């Protein structure tokens, strides 16, 4: 589904991703861990098409199509979703209006009729229940005045509404209490249908108890330096990253 080869990317003249390779197959869940500043969010943003980041080399194919040439909206319409590490507050734009616009733009790109208000409300109600979010949150401005946890939950709610093929979750677990963490994990698991794929960026093995990954990778200094299965996450939790840094140095 997603094939990243030798990806090099940077920002403001600084190279951050330095030849990154990653393949994600249909229905798979990949966890990416790694020290602060190693380039995890950079990877997520490059996948979503943020143009502050410059792609310096390599290739990214999504279902065989060159992603790098596509606008952010076209990537979203093609089925890529990024749950942001820091969701943005957008005063004056209601959550519901925003999502209705998004859902219908994506439907339009698929040649589908727009959802009418009634069907949209039904869909919204169903997905709100999934992340145990109050309906009242949808009439508020996007993320405005939301607590950290509410913002993260709102990201998962949007994901559920938009039904992407590939979701990249950038530290969606950070700042969540244990109950919220379970809710978010349940939300994700409910969307695991054997076809939809996930890239889960996290610092904590705890999340991976709930969202069990097929693969775990370590991103360090702009490269995937180690890959394994869920046991790798346990090992990292126990030993930290120093042993990996040493391995890389050797």
């Amino acid at each position, binding site marked *: 589904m997603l094939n990243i080869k030798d990806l090099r990317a940077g920002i403001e003249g600084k190279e951050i991703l330095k030849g990154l390779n990653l393949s994600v197959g249909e229905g798979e869940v990949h966890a990416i861990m790694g020290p602060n500043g190693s380039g995890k969010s950079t990877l997520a943003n490059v996948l979503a098409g943020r143009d502050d980041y410059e792609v310096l080399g390599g290739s990214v194919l999504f279902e065989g199509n060159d992603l790098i040439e596509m*606008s952010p909206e076209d990537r*979203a319409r093609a089925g890529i979703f990024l749950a942001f590490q820091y969701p943005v507050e*957008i005063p004056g*734009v209601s959550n519901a209006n925003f999502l209705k616009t998004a859902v219908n733009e994506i439907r339009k790109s698929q040649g589908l009729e727009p959802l009418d208000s009634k069907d949209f409300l039904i869909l919204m109600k169903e997905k709100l229940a999934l992340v145990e979010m109050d309906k009242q949150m949808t009439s508020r401005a996007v993320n405005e005045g939301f607590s950290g946890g509410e913002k993260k939950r709102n990201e998962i709610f949007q994901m559920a509404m938009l039904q992407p093929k590939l979701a990249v979750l950038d530290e969606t677990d950070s700042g969540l209490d244990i109950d919220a963490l379970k809710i978010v994990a349940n939300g994700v698991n409910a969307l695991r249908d054997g076809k939809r794929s996930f890239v889960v960026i996290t610092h904590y093995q705890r999340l991976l108890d709930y969202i069990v990954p097929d693969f775990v990778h370590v991103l360090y200094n702009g490269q995937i330096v180690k890959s394994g299965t869920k046991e790798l996450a346990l090992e990292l939790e126990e030993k930290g990253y120093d042993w990996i840094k040493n391995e890389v140095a050797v």
Partner: protein
Amino acid sequence: MKNKVIGNTDIVSGILDEQNEFTSVYSKGQAWLNELRIAGKNAFSEQGVPKFKDEEWKYTHIAKALGEHYHLPHTYSLPANQDLSNYKLLDANTVTLVYINGIPVPELSDKLISEGVTAAPASDVENSSEFKTFLGSVADISNHNFSACNTAFLNNPCIINVKAGVQSPKTIQIIHLLGTDDNDSMCFPRTLIHTEKGAYVEVVESYYSLPNSNQNFCAAVTEIIEEENSHVDYYKYEDVSDSTILTTNTYFKLQRDSRSESFTFSLNGKLIRNDLDIKLTAENGHAELHGIYLPNGQQHFDNHTLVDHISPHCYSNELYKGVMGGSAHAVFNGKVYVRRDAQKTNAYQSNNNILLSDEAQIDTKPQLEIYADDVKCSHGATTGQLDDDALFYLRARGIGENEARNLLVTAFSGEALNEIPNETLRDVFADKIHRKLSVMSH
């Protein structure tokens, strides 16, 4: 009036020449206007067109924009097949009065038949000279060049009067159509709104250029006089062509316990200058003044507002929002005076701007002058760009770039729009904003 082009290099004497000829034709009509007209002419010949160094016109070089010569238009008729519905902003419950270049067009206008409400050109108003005490009583011809100029051409003003205790069941929309197919025409629409004790009326004054009209200049004046405990909702809607220069002077005088809501919406035009003056002359007056301006390309929109708190216990609240695209230039200058006697004043003012492009420009200057000591006042101005993070966030959810910009700007301007009491107009304006934004360059 015959077609005549004056090749005068001096715009002021050119206008005055036209005025002489105009007077010889029109002084036979509404005689009670003669004195005012002469006063206007004298005031204008003294002041002329605002100069570069005039502090009030610092950022709006109108003399340069105006060029050299203007003449009164020779044709007053609407081009064939012109559909008025394009200009009507509201459907039901509205009385429409049509003016072409400041001259009433009875064939196209509705007759208002409503007990206690008058809305008609002076020539159709019985005993119109009774309005002599009001007309010109708040327009400041000694300081406002274009008020003076307008007054010099006073001929057949639109008069709206609501009798004591009457709540006008109809909204009154004045459709001003401007320009002709020959060059450099000028016109001077004039409106008087008077609400007697306890009366209410909603008025929409809208300005459009006639299709295929050439470079033209319009200096409009509106006076609104509210007696005790009366209430006026006043909307100014400006959607003229890129070859129209439009100045408006709008004056409110609020008596005790009266209330005004004004909304100034500058959508399109080559150069627009709005001067809004509100005098709170007696206790417990309440003035809301809000506006949106959206210049694009080479357009230049300037809003000058003055709220004069003369008496105690009055309230004013002002919010203007601007979005500038292309290499447009906007100006906001908001003055609030709180006079020595105006204790317990509440006065709030805010002006927010978004520049869509690097070439767009805003000069904003809030000015608060307070001479009373027991008051609550605040003012603030902000200028920024569209939030890139928000834009990316929306696009990352599949919303196209233009639509995403639209959502953000709509949200921004929505704050001012939400101040509009009339929900239908709010939706109409929201739609106009949406359309304009889709052509604005960033």
